[in-house]
């Protein structure tokens, strides 16, 4: 392991996760082309937070930038996971929806404009509850409209991950890119423990959490398109390649028959080892969740 850890390649990496949301967005554009829209100096803040004694932020934790990536028109929308857990409020939600709609309008008029979503979000911001939920519905709709013309790429890089309603947003994207540090799921471990009890999910078990939601697992399962290291150059290169590749022949969330039959083949009466629930070509040959003994042994081993 030591050779791997201290390799030149590793030492030369620059972390993508550690960049601010604004710098992450800017890093993706062809040099000097990224231009922020409705930025912090526009001062369009959440109208709902101050009413509740919560300090708003001048960009509402969401950065929209326009420019070119690999020479193609693109818009990047980045969430700041440090502000309200990256939660979607009225303003941040409207920023994302509008950016997608404008990209769609240009695409329809013969100027394809891709969208890259840098998702660091726990989902709906509960202080703006119903307007956050409504915003997520609108975001999903706008992604589905745009992805017909240009790729919509969701990047889930940091440990805040992508949860709640925003996991549907990732789900309807043309492509999902993750790092091993990223997490993706509808309900986070704490929510499941709260709603269904500690027997259902022990949220303090970090190994279990990453074995289910982690980028490596989601990639192994075939639920994510590309796994990258937390490295700026790798993320840039991957986004450029996907934009160049264009719209996929079929989006993952359109492949209903495939995934419905996967679910039908699962046996929910047994305890599952997450690593066994995989639909990549290599693992499809194996039965899933049928051998409880093996599954629980492996689980102990993981801990």
């Amino acid at each position, binding site marked *: 392991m030591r050779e791997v850890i201290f390799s030149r390649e590793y030492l030369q990496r620059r972390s993508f996760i550690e960049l601010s949301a604004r710098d992450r967005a800017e890093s993706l554009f062809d040099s000097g082309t990224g231009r922020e829209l409705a930025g912090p100096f526009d001062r*369009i803040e959440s109208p709902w937070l101050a009413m509740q004694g919560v300090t708003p932020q001048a960009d509402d934790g969401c950065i929209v930038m326009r420019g070119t990536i690999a020479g193609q028109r693109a818009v990047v929308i980045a969430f700041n996971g440090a502000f309200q857990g990256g939660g979607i409020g009225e303003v941040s939600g409207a920023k994302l929806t509008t950016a997608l709609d404008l990209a769609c309008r240009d695409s329809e008029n013969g100027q394809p404009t891709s969208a890259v979503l840098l998702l660091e979000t726990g989902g709906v911001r509960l202080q703006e*509850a119903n307007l956050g*939920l409504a915003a997520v519905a609108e975001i*999903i709709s706008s992604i*589905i409209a745009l992805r017909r013309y240009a790729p919509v790429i969701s990047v889930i890089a940091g440990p805040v991950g992508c949860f709640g309603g925003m*996991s549907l947003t990732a789900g309807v994207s043309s492509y999902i890119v993750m790092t091993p540090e990223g997490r993706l799921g*509808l309900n986070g471990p704490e929510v499941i423990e709260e709603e*269904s009890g500690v027997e259902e999910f022990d949220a303090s078990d970090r190994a279990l959490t990453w074995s289910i939601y982690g980028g490596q697992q989601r990639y192994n399962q075939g639920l994510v398109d590309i796994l990258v290291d937390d490295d700026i150059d790798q993320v840039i290169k991957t986004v450029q390649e996907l934009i160049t590749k264009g719209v996929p022949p079929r989006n993952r*969330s359109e492949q209903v028959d495939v995934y419905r039959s*996967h679910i039908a083949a699962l046996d929910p009466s047994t305890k599952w080892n997450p690593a066994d629930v995989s639909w990549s070509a290599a693992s499809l040959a194996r039965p899933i969740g049928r051998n409880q003994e093996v599954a629980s042994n492996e689980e102990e081993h993981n801990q």
Partner: protein
Amino acid sequence: MSKPTGIRGRVWFKALTDQEKPMPGDPPSVLVADAPVGNENARLLCVVPDPNSRFPCASHGEVGLEQAYTLATRIREIIKADTTGSAGNEIKKRPFIAIVDVKSQAYGRREEIAGIHLAAAAAADAYATARFAGHPVITLIVGQAISGGFLTHGYQANRLLAFADDDVLIHAMHKEPAARITRRTVAQLESLAKTVTPLSYDVRDYAKLGLLYKLLPVSNPETPSADEISLVRNAIAEAIADARIGPTDLRNRFESEAAQTARKATRLIRARLEEEWNQ
């Protein structure tokens, strides 16, 4: 507190379709039927509780893996059937009616392992794809419409209808966990909700956000009268007709009269981004 979910879903599915059984091969928790509404033949979809659900976390009327993929399948088969024929003649796109009484998405470990986020995305995708293809998609909220359950089943509709009833609950999260997570008491949350409209659990406040097409006066949602059923049928028919002449995206939700007041910030962001987009 609110009543258990599922009763209303079944009642209204039966009232509007005169059927109560799932389609062959579907789980008992997803009711789908084709029935006339107004002068159109519509497909109605509803998620109901199934105490014997294969997935235990989806047995009380939650939207889980099987429910979401079944909805997506039943929507997509109509989209496919109603696609313009080879001769190029336009086929009239059938309307979809989502009857909504869902307490939430399924909160389970197995669900997460199996990627419930993709199942939910697939159902939302199917509804939105139907809408963009020109199918009127109408949602009738008869009980609860909570969080991921609502995003999966119903929130992609062109037109949203809801009963003006105290047990109709449209929200991002149930009151108790929402209070805990935002570090408030339920009483504090309730008091804030009086001035912060998006926090409110009252459907009459929800109507002020501009998202609803209409609030329907139904006083007995569990035992509706013939008059109430006919009122609801007419409202759905009207919503279908309105959806057919409107845009296929969701702009009506922030361009509505109520949204001019309630969603000022949304409208400001839209205007500003549009202004700066080509500068």
